[in-house]
């Protein structure tokens, strides 16, 4: 997709989306706002996992960093939430940079192990420091606006989601993005052509963590109550499933995954405690049998329809 075509798709889609508050009730608007949060999370996780092949299990944790930083600053020091979200995003970027520098020299498995540990440690700190974080009770935080307005939040989340998508799109379609894919396809070949493999990975991890921090900060001020649920591994699992089911390594994949799975999970929620289990089984089957997700399935369909005779003939020959 060229830049021009990207904006040709993006602008009308956003304008259409902008009319949603006029047609949707409060509950449905809430579902859309939550979907936009997951869209940001899944797309930024995809930047890392889909385009550089590094699996981070701390993406939800970085969202938690953004949410708690901004929330604590607002509650303790009365800082304006808008500035708080910016500070939270920067802190997530900084921590992402530190973790990235620490373990990306050693390769992908080390990042996965360390981020899993990071996310567990964050959970322990949040529950232990309950005087500051209110532990599992949750931290009540002020909203972004003086007067609560769901429509206002919708436009804020929509704006943030568009910003996230543009940043990711520009990044993967720049020279740096070329390096991302080079590193994923063949690390040694990329290194031999002068690509600084470690730096490329650290950059992807830092940007992706910062975007998660921003999404988490805004989401916290929307919910008005920040709980350890935001940085939990269950949340991480949701983001991961959305990306995998939508289509890892494709740009629209996580967007489709975020919306379809958030809406699906609203339906499954009726099953109460079975909800996560059902969700997990769906994700497991999808990840096993359709590794390229819905986008991969759609692509296969298109290719088959376009050249059915040729593929069948080729298949028969071989």
């Amino acid at each position, binding site marked *: 997709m060229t830049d021009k075509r990207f904006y040709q798709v993006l602008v009308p889609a956003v304008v259409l989306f902008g009319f949603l508050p006029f047609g949707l009730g409060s509950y449905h608007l809430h579902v859309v706002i939550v979907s936009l949060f997951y869209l940001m999370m899944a797309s930024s996780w995809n930047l890392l996992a889909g385009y550089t092949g590094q699996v981070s299990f701390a993406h939800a944790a970085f969202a938690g960093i953004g949410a708690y930083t901004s929330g604590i600053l607002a509650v303790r020091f009365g800082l304006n939430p808008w500035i708080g979200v910016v500070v939270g995003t920067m802190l997530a970027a900084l921590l992402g940079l530190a973790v990235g520098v620490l373990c990306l020299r050693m390769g*992908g498995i080390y990042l996965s*192990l360390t981020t*899993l*540990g990071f996310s567990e440690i964050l959970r322990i700190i949040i529950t232990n420091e309950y005087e500051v974080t209110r532990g599992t009770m949750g931290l009540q935080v002020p909203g972004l606006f003086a007067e609560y307005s769901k429509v206002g939040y919708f436009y804020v989340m929509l704006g943030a989601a568009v910003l996230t998508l543009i940043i990711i799109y520009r990044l993967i379609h720049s020279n740096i993005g070329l390096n991302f894919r080079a590193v994923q396809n063949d690390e040694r070949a990329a290194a031999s052509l002068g690509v600084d493999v470690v730096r490329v990975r650290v950059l992807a991890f830092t940007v992706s963590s910062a975007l998660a921090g921003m999404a988490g900060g805004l989401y916290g001020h929307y919910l008005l109550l920040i709980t350890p649920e935001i940085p939990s*591994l269950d949340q991480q*699992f949701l983001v991961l499933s959305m990306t995998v089911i939508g289509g890892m390594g494709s740009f629209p994949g996580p967007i489709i995954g975020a919306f379809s799975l958030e809406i699906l999970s609203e339906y499954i929620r009726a099953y109460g405690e079975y909800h996560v289990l059902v969700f997990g089984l769906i994700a497991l089957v999808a990840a096993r049998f359709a590794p390229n997700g819905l986008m991969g399935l759609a692509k296969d369909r298109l290719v088959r329809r376009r050249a059915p005779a040729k593929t069948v003939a080729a298949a028969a020959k071989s």
Partner: protein
Amino acid sequence: MFALAVMNGLVIGVIYALAALGVSLVVGIMNVVNFAHGELYILAGYFSYLFAGALGVNFVAAMIVAVLLVFLFGLFVEWVLIRPTYGNDMYSLILTFILSIVLQNAYLLIFGPYPNKPPGWVGGATNVFGLFYYGNQRLAALAAASVVIALLFVVIKKTWFGRIIRATSQDREMAELNGVNTTRLNMLSFGLGCALAAAAGVILAPVFPVTPTAGLPVALTAFVVVVLGGMGSLWGCVLGGLILGLVENLGAAFISTGYKHLFNFIILILVLLIRPAGLFGRREA
């Protein structure tokens, strides 16, 4: 207090070593990290609770059946989930992570959030070196785990099967050229890795009851032990496990119990900063 913390550290350390050996074996041969390792540890705990506790089977038989069942489950998981991902290390991470969430929620539905525990093997306490009284159950756990580790070392260092394992983890292609069926070996070693997690589970469950989410801290510690010891190194696991067990318990005794697991993370960071290949790691890891 110091001596008691050291003793606790030894018991836990040996169990950590056992759990980490399972991870390390699979990493060495297949280059796959099983993120559901902790959930298999818990699964074995639940099995032994079911057989020995609820059904009243003899505890030794219950433990053996539990480990065997988890071994079979491991073979199944390798066959269904891991085999299609050969050559794509990241995808097996994702699949095993999803599996761990599925298992956690399945346990929650079947057994509830409450801790469950199989009956102990022995009662009473023994006076250790005239310093303090120590529960016999814990001493028995220490002995049992040491025996399993010793057995594993004999199998790997002295038997034909062990030679195949060592050859494959050194050079996969060369082993294939010499007639090793690496697909079957992968399946077996993944099962064996799960069985080691299960062994740790059945040994520790009478001391530390199992809950649906108790597997994560154990698995995380096992991962840190593997990084500390060096990916794929078996001696590294034993030494690393003991170090972590001691640090964790001394830290809990003298600094803070709430932050017990934080010490592991600090060790992980230090290893990555100072010696990323680990104590006995191969450079290229």
